């Protein structure tokens, strides 16, 4: 279970957002911001609901095109995967969801089942391989989404509030998985509004508030000596969600 064959060690390209802003129907949802993410860190994006966290993730992952500014990877774009708040699974069995992902990334047919079963095993879903993905519990569905991302061997993994709809045991499983990804050499970019979760997982913190980037600092600094008034209020739990 814990043989974490590390991904081939090549430097993960840095992500640069330069003056990136987003507007929809004349409404500015994300103020122009600059952000540079380097190395194999675990970056947690925090902020109240509507702060623009999900938007930032989608812009960085390339699901949305910014209204202004530029999102770029230094060198080549890395292999990426994203885990959403509500997992979108295909109307097929758990196993078929994984073999589909393998087919998409070009894995030869004869190796797909084996790899998929390994991933199911890793995420504690082996007994459920024949079950339709859509009838699994919320926690199981999210683990299956993580298993699918695992098979993509991403260099960068985006997670958008992956635990906000889950019970404590399922949250623990997701957090363990995030750490496994990181140990395998995957850069993590994850949103949460759970302060404790951020303390447990983060190397650095990005704080958004009202569509603005307020602060980006190492987790240790953020929690002990926050630079901005918003961060101080946020840590004291005074920022209204």
């Amino acid at each position: 279970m814990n043989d974490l064959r590390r991904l081939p060690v090549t430097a993960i390209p840095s992500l640069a957002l330069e003056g990136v802003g987003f507007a929809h129907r004349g409404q500015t949802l994300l103020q122009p911001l600059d952000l540079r993410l380097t190395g194999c860190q675990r970056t947690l994006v925090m902020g109240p609901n509507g702060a623009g966290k999900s938007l930032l993730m989608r812009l960085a992952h390339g699901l949305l095109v910014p209204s202004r500014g530029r999102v770029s990877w230094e060198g080549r774009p890395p292999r990426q995967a994203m885990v959403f708040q509500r997992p979108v699974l295909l109307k097929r069995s758990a196993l078929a969801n994984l073999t589909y992902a393998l087919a998409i990334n070009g894995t030869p047919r004869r190796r797909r089942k084996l790899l998929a079963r390994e991933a199911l095993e890793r995420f504690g879903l082996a007994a459920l391989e024949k079950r339709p993905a859509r009838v699994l519990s919320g926690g199981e569905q999210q683990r299956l989404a993580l298993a699918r991302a695992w098979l993509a061997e991403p260099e960068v993994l985006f997670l958008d509030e992956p635990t906000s709809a889950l019970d404590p045991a399922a949250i623990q499983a997701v957090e363990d998985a995030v750490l496994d990804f990181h140990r395998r050499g995957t850069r993590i970019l994850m949103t949460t509004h759970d302060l404790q979760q951020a303390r447990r997982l983060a190397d650095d913190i990005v704080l958004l508030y009202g569509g603005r980037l307020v602060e980006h600092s190492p987790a240790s600094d953020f929690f002990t000596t926050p630079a901005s008034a918003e961060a101080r209020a946020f840590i004291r739990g005074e920022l209204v969600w």
Partner: protein
Amino acid sequence: MPDDANAFQTALALIMGGDPDLLGIVMLSLQVSLTAVLIAALIALPLGAALALWQFPGRGVAIVMLNAMMGLPPVVAGLAVYLLLSRAGPLGEFGLLFTPGAMVIAQVILVLPIIAALTRQQVEELHSEYREQLSSMGVSRSRRIPTLLWDARLGLTTVMLAGFGRASAEVGAVMIVGGNIDGVSRVMTTAIVLETSKGNLPLALGLGIVLLVLVALINAAAHLVGETAQRRLG
């Protein structure tokens, strides 16, 4: 006016007796309509899915046209195919007019817009749910067509049934291009028209009952398949 009991008795006797003429008519009806639905589906399923996935200028017009074609009067479709296949027509040399082949062609024209338009709707709806996930996984647009068609398979069964319903119920198109020739191109609907106009109401009614039962059976089978799949797939 014959009494209904008599008509039903005649109908039952025909069905139970396994009347070879009746059997021939029923088999031909099924053959023509099922072939038409199969051919139409092979074209319309990917076409509908493509229409759901691709944005292009004039897409709105194409969708409206397709939806309008769902209401194409069978006699008009029949007339168009008749003109194409008649001796003097562009496809006259194939000698298809008044054969089951011509009837299949006419029904394909009737069924194709229904399957394509409804498929477009269903696939578009499913894709709005899948879009981000598929984009995140880097699934190309042409690869999404089989993915979405397969995942929408439950709803698409109903779509195919709607197509079969239209094909098996219409009379105008098969009458014009088939000619209702005994033993060659006579199907249930054209036979019903003929027997009714001859005043042979018991036989017409008998055929009507057979048609109803067949359509009901096919729907029941599809429903069962759908239910089972629904239970298994959630």
